[in-house]
């Protein structure tokens, strides 16, 4: 895997560090009741988010899942506006109406997190249809988890993307557990890429702990889509370090299993070694980067804490346009 230039590589590393620090910080704040409705921590899955989003153009579209802080940060939204959203403040990305599960800003190509498993891929597929209808040179990425691989509409959308040759990339952010259910226990046939291939989609099972591998596969998928060669399915195998939801202490996997993934496959540790061995940074420069990330997240928390609550008189705003927004 060729390593990108220094600036790009350090950017990838810093983005993964931002996600990790953001998630671990937010997790603690969530346990303290700061995050309305709790949250889903993506620690461990940084390479998927950063690998995918670093391979996209700024106005490419994404639609994602209930676990989407990492995708949203990697899309370029600030830790301030996402933390503020977790705190349901008016300065949040969704104006405080969404919290952890519903981050999104359509005008910036983020078509939303989603509280419903599988829904994001459908919306991303629709966005890809919109791109095709308008003849734009963009792609749409639908993130989905392993749990979403067993809901029927996912495959309706995959089929539709194939028959219409849409510029869609389906990325399975496969952390191996649907809440507490191991993917292998509930997935007929077992091989997700083969499933997608059965629908006629180009499909790959890849290492989702390796940011450069994810980036490479998504870059190639994007090139194909822009060349009119249709959609791609990428199953990125990764691991979540924390429970499905904040505070969960499940018995469905062993501490040894978690420790094994953390100690041998961690995407950030792995990429630090790549950056250092490429001569892009010394250990002390990596430490400085970590400290600057810490400061950024602390600032995000302070910003969120100081941000105003939404005005409750706005609960009826933006439900619809009123008279359908039509000037007749």
């Amino acid at each position, binding site marked *: 895997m060729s390593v990108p230039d220094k600036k790009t590589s350090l950017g990838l590393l810093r983005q993964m560090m931002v996600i990790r620090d953001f998630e671990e910080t937010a997790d603690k704040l969530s346990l303290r009741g700061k995050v309305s409705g709790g949250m889903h921590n993506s620690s461990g899955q940084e390479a998927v988010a950063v690998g995918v989003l670093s391979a996209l153009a700024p106005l490419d*579209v994404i*639609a994602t899942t209930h676990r989407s802080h990492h995708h949203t940060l990697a899309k370029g939204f600030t830790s301030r506006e996402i933390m503020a959203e977790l705190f349901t403040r008016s300065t949040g990305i*969704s*104006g405080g*109406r*969404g919290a952890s599960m*519903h981050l*999104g*800003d*359509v*005008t910036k190509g*983020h*078509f*939303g997190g*989603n*509280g*419903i498993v599988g*829904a994001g891929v*459908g*919306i*991303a*597929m*629709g*966005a*890809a*249809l*919109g*791109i095709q*209808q*308008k003849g734009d040179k963009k792609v*749409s990425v639908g993130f989905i988890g392993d749990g979403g691989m067993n809901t*029927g*509409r996912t495959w*309706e*959308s995959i*089929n*539709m993307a194939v*028959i*219409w040759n849409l510029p869609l990339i389906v990325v399975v952010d496969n952390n191996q557990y649907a809440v507490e259910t191991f993917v292998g226990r509930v997935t007929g046939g077992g091989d997700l890429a083969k499933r997608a291939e059965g629908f006629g989609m180009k499909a790959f099972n890849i290492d989702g702990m390796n940011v450069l591998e994810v980036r490479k596969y998504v870059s190639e998928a994007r090139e194909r889509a822009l060349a009119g060669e249709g959609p791609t399915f990428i199953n990125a195998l990764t691991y979540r370090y924390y429970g499905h939801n904040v505070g969960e202490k499940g018995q469905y996997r062993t501490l040894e299993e978690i420790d094994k993934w953390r100690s041998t496959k961690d995407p950030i540790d792995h990429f630090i070694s790549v950056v250092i061995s490429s001569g892009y940074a010394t250990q002390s420069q990596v430490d400085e980067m970590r400290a600057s990330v810490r400061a950024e997240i602390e600032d995000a928390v302070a910003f969120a804490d100081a941000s105003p609550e939404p005005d409750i008189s706005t609960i009826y705003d*933006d*439900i*619809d*346009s009123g*008279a*359908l*927004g*039509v000037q*007749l």
Partner: protein
Amino acid sequence: MTTSTTSTPKVQNPSYSEAFQSGVREEMKRNAGIFILGTDLQERGGHFAQVKGIAQEFGFDRVKDAPISEAAMVAAGVGAAMYGCHPIVDLNFIDFAFGAMDEILNQAAKIRFMFNGKVPLVIRATSGVALGGAHHCNSLEALFASTPGLSVAVPSTAIDVKGLIKTALRAEDPVIFLMHKKLSGVRGEIGDENYFVPFGKAKSVRSGTDAAIITYGYSIVTAHKAAEALAAEGVSVEIIDLRTLYPLDEEAINNAVKKYGRVVVMDEAPTFGSITGEIAATATERNFSALKGPIVRVGGARAPISANPAMADAAIPTVAAVMKAVKAVMAY
């Protein structure tokens, strides 16, 4: 312009389905972002010929044949609408929306509220009680109308079909566009290309002096028959066609209550949990003192619709039932 003589065949007014075609065509010419997707549209033109010939005129990119994948069809429309197109998703029968309920109620309806975006999307389907049995005769309009973010059109005439679909295709919001099976063949003038019907504006379709029937869709036909029969008995009834259920024309409802104090509300949906209940409750809360007696509802049975024609008819309001209801309010 001169018209010629006897050899010219009499040109029929457009049908309800042709009115839909006409409105869609006019708007598709104006807005390249409008496209239609659904099953069996390109050649067949839909089960009710509602888009017949449009694929041939505008090309197969703007009338797309989809697999029978309701969830993906609506999701495709939602995502494309968010992206800036104005899709029409044709679900054939509204009963098929059950396969796409999350996409409609939970996604399309809520995006504007949370994600700084718009969802200009029309979901067209044929609705209402006719032959076809329990799986093709659900009346789901109250479900959609009660979901924040959705608008619901229920035209009863060709001109309203055209005027409402043209408005829907200029709107920013998701619209559920319900066309009644038994109205497919009704014909009428449809106005010119500048004819629009605003949402949330009911229309008085028969004037009266004694009482009002408030209804929509095919029930307008039943109401007219009842009103004719009542006129023969000396009772003069106004009929108000709601045309859209959300936005609901509360002003027209309140005015009817204030004018007559005697109001019947009618539709085909099971009375339990229906729009008629919403109208009766709202009107009573707002103008209780103007009422001479309770608003009487005439609705469907809380029963699946049978495929047996007589049983199907027995589950929805009859002319006799509407007449009885009007006589009941007249008795106060």
